[in-house]
């Protein structure tokens, strides 16, 4: 909320040296954060209030005139292009030579079409006062004496505090509310301006309007006052300046008064054209199927929770949200009914949210308007309107208040205060602080205060609230700082596996990225299958954030694309985070497993062989090492020919062998076990859909499937006796995988065979027989308790070779 410092000074007794900045600092430290201070009118100086003496035409320009004026001194003749120059005796704003206008324009004596003009006569726009319509600013005798410095006189020179009022403080949404706080913080007094003394007339026969509240939960208080015989026109300039400072556009004296009183008291007001009302007024909930045309001209369907003001014909206003077109005031309005009321905050909030109609009024109503303040606001507005519009307040007005609001009684104990604050604040000091913001207390025994919380503080309802009030007024800076006693039991972080994966992938040379949890629908559409069905965000900001991600792949591809666009072509990226998928469990309809995923694009790092592209085995190695870091060594890779994500010939599912194999560390050949991930080349069709124009290799591991805790290492002493190795070379059918060959070699169950590894997979068609590949394995033999003789090794190797030869497609090479 914007607070004019000029206005505030009018309400609070502040010592002359107190600046807007010092007020801002204190408010901020008391919980009403001042986000900025706008200094207005700083570059406006020297503009004076002048009186017109007469006007004559410009000798050589039809549209210009020469205005004779004075500002308390000698008469001057100023050239003016406006058509609304007042007759002799009228007052205007004159910027004489030497004056400066907003934007830094400095006035001078200047010849205009052959006539010397000392400065100029100003329009509202030229004074920095908003649009202000055509023509020059015309001042009324009420505004300022002739010769006065205009900026100072009408409050153009001001500092406007932008106060961030938290939703619990409806009382602070007004200059009066801020004045109360400032007075408390500076230990001084403040006052609420009294209604003007204006002529009052009895209500003419038949002009009375009855008010009936039909739903006292919808409306706890409704005051109506009638003002008649109004002349609509602009408000006094000082009022317009204040509204402008507070960011409110001046419209007419009628509208301006409702805004001004709202900014002063916090009470939104609404004016109905009295002559367009038919019969009495009722405050009620909307009926089923009821419609209303709001003053923006839109015919709106209402809902049963909406609160409406209705006359004999039907709804004439959406209470607290927007007036109706049928009762709207216009330039021809002379008699009005002024409404000051309080409505159910929740209903106002729902209605204004549903219709997208948030206003200064609805903002206050949904936070809570003080029912007890209504009579004052109603009187103040009616009197001000009568004065500005030269009208009369008619009758005493109506005040319906079916459910009396009472101040709340809340007890504050010394023990409660000390316990929460962590230091001692004497109750006497607490009582003083509370009194300063209108919360009266009385001793309630030795160590308790009974506080009476006024209705304008709906946020204060329990002892803790009082503790906060006392603490913020004493100052949080007085609280000591100490570390809490005791300590918690250390526990494993649920993030530990994810962090271990991050460390491993970074150590393997990849860069971590963080991407959004939601993705465009097209990204998941490209993935196809179950992955298409992401959980939908119902109110996305844009199509970029429509579905919760079901895979980390599209995000990584997007990251690669962005880097390619920046001419970075060689990439190793990874991300670790949740994906969101549906479950069959109605209680927990979604699950968020954590995935570690990586993408390789381009070439391997290294200048020695600069053109080596990444291939499957780079990704496979990363997957293997990642799983090793997660405590899994017994892996198997099974071709994933049906995968929608991976190239049918260059992709694998990652299987973890069963727990026994894991525990014993024994090499086994069967590739069964659970699937924990994928690795391979991204399906070229998918890349086309996602728009990545480079080959890419992807791997992902579901961390939850891998299991939480890494098993502790069970170490084995290194062998005491040397190994002997023998190589074996053979042709075999292309379709027989390395894992199958390993199984063949192990089928001899040779106890001395301790290790076996592929040295070569040779497929050059110029040398290899058709449909065959040449394999070279190295086999390692060892006994635990002695050094093997060559003869023993040869015998063992012969048994293994014999087993291999049993396979029909094998042909040994020499």
């Amino acid at each position: 909320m914007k607070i004019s410092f000029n206005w505030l000074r009018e309400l609070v007794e502040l010592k002359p040296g107190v600046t807007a900045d010092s007020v801002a600092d204190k408010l901020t430290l008391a919980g009403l954060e001042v986000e900025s201070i706008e200094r207005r009118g700083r570059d406006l100086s020297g503009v004076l209030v002048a009186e017109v003496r007469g006007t004559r035409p410009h000798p050589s320009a039809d549209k210009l005139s020469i205005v004779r004026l004075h500002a308390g001194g000698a008469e001057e003749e100023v050239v003016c292009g406006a058509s609304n120059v007042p007759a002799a005796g009228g007052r205007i704003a004159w910027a004489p030579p030497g004056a400066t206008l907003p934007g830094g324009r400095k006035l001078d004596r200047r010849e205009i079409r052959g006539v010397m003009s000392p400065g100029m006569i100003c329009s509202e726009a030229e004074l920095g006062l908003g649009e202000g319509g055509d023509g020059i600013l015309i001042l009324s005798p009420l505004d300022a004496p002739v010769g006065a410095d205009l900026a100072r006189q009408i409050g153009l020179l001001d500092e406007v505090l932008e106060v961030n009022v938290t939703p619990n403080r409806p009382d602070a949404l007004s200059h009066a509310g801020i004045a109360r706080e400032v007075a408390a913080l500076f230990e001084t007094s403040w006052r609420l301006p009294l209604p003007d003394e204006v002529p009052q007339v009895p209500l003419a026969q038949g002009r009375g309007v009855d008010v009936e509240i039909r739903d006292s939960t919808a409306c706890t208080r409704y005051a109506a006052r009638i003002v008649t015989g109004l002349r609509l026109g602009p408000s006094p300039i000082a009022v317009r300046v204040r509204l402008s400072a507070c960011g409110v556009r001046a419209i007419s004296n009628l509208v301006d008064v409702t805004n001004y009183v709202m900014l002063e008291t916090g009470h939104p007001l609404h004016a109905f054209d009295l002559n367009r009302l038919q019969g009495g007024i009722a405050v009620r909930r909307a009926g089923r199927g009821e419609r209303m045309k709001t003053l923006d001209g839109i015919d709106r369907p209402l809902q049963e929770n909406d609160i409406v003001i209705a006359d004999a014909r039907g709804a004439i206003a959406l209470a607290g949200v927007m007036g109706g077109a049928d009762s709207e005031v216009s330039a021809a309005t002379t008699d009005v009914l002024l409404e000051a009321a309080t409505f159910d905050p929740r209903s106002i909030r729902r209605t204004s949210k549903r219709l997208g109609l948030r206003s200064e009024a609805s903002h206050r109503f949904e936070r809570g308007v003080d029912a007890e303040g209504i009579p004052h606001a109603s009187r103040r507005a009616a009197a001000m309107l009568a004065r500005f519009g030269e009208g009369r307040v008619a009758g005493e007005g109506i005040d319906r208040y079916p459910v009396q609001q009472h101040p709340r009684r809340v007890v504050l104990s010394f023990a409660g205060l000390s316990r929460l604050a962590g230091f001692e604040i004497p109750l006497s000091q607490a009582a003083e602080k509370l009194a300063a913001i209108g919360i009266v207390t009385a001793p309630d025994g030795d160590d308790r205060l009974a506080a009476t919380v006024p209705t304008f503080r709906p946020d204060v309802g329990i002892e803790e609230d009082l503790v906060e009030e006392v603490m913020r007024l004493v100052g949080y800076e007085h609280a000591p700082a100490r570390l809490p006693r005791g300590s918690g039991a250390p526990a494993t972080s649920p993030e530990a596996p994810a962090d271990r994966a991050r460390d491993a992938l970074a150590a393997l040379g990849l860069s971590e990225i963080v991407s959004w949890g939601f993705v465009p629908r097209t990204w998941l559409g490209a993935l196809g299958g179950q992955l298409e069905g992401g959980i939908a965000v119902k109110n996305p900001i844009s199509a970029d954030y429509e579905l919760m991600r079901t895979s980390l792949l599209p995000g990584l591809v997007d990251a690669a694309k962005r880097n390619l666009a920046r001419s970075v072509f060689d990439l190793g990226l990874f991300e670790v985070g949740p994906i969101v998928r549906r479950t069959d469990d109605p209680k927990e309809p979604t699950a968020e497993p954590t995935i570690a995923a990586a993408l390789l694009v381009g070439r391997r790092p290294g200048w020695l062989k600069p053109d080596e592209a990444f291939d499957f085995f780079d990704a496979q190695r990363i997957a293997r090492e990642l799983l090793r870091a997660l405590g899994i060594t017994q892996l198997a890779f099974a071709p994933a020919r049906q995968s929608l994500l991976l190239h049918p010939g260059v992709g694998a599912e990652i299987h973890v062998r069963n727990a026994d194999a894991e525990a014993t560390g024994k090499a086994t050949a069967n590739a069964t076990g659970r699937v924990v991930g994928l690795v391979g080349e991204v399906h070229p069709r998918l890349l086309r859909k996602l728009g990545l124009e480079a080959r890419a290799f992807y791997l992902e591991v579901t961390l939850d499937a891998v299991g939480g805790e890494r098993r502790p290492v069970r170490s084995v002493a290194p062998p005491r006796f040397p190994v002997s190795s023998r190589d074996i070379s053979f042709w075999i059918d292309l379709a027989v995988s390395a894992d199958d060959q390993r199984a063949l070699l192990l089928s001899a169950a040779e106890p001395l065979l301790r290790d076996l590894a592929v040295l070569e997979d040779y497929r050059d068609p110029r040398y290899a027989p058709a449909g065959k590949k040449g394999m070279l394995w190295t086999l390692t033999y060892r006994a635990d308790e002695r050094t093997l003789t060559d003869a023993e090794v040869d015998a063992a190797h012969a048994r293994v070779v014999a087993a291999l030869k049993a396979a029909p497609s094998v042909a040994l090479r020499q």
Partner: protein
Amino acid sequence: MSSGEKAPIVADLIGDLDRLAGAFADEIGALATEQEIRLAQARYLGKKGRVSELMKALGRLAAEDRPAVGEAANRAKASIEGAVATRLGALDEADLHADLARVVDVTLPGRGWPLGTLHPLTLVRREIEGIFLGLGFEVRTGPWIETEWNNFDALNTPPDHPARDMQDTFFVEGGRVLRSHTSPVQIRTMLSGPPPVRIIAPGNVFRRDDDATHTPMFPQMEGLLVDQGVSFADLKGTLLYFVHRFFGPNLGVRLRPSYFPFTEPSAEVDAACYLCSGSGQSGGRSCRLCKGSGWIEIGGAGMVHPNVFRAVGYDPRAVSGFAFGMGLSRMAMLKFEVDDLRSFYEHDVRFLAQFR
């Protein structure tokens, strides 16, 4: 005459032996490999070598002549062996010398894959986790998709409460929300067991904001401590400890009254600006980091509202607690002097490569 005949034989033998040593030295001077030298050595000292050939005459000598010839033979052997050792030593020295002539350009890059990088948001999360782990806090996490009850109601923010506007929330199908803060982890933790509770909860949260200073997803870190007799002073001390560890020793912390539905009293948390040490002035002008205020805003905090305790079945008369929350992207921006929040999410490896 026998002695007259013998004498020249003895003298000749000794002379021949002495000449052999000289001849060997000449011979191996031209040899460049150890193998050739060893072969040459064998030709002189081997069983059928030239020294042995000469020594066959020894048996025909008179007993009194033998010592002198034997001595000459030993001298020749020693000389030859010495020459071998010297020559081999010289060759080895030459090899070494040649080896030492190798030069590489040490300024060329090394081979293999460089280390990768962790994301700055990961680094800052871990640093902050480490600080609170040291105070006995444990890490808890929760899901992105939450119930409205966990995200709002249990946190004293009933439906239609204006405070719901403080966090513009994403809704997903099934009446759930994308959590708008990490505070639901408080609720989950307290529902899962009795006090005391001492947790931090890092994680991504979601709000409908997307501009230069807001991203629709951003990481938060929540802290919650519930025990008997926990006070505002404990909160202040904990935050002060954090500021000292994270931003630097001797920096102050400032709590400003504020409002969150789930805490009472509530506070905004400022740390003294580490760039200007809280003076607001840096290099004679207004500090660019804190804009001259001397303080930087780091998060929100407060004492747990009794209604939150009631929602999870804790007795607000028996326990009290504090909670705090901070934005990790802001912490990372401060820590690493990142000017543009968007940098964290643009995946530019040239940016990410800095965080080794």
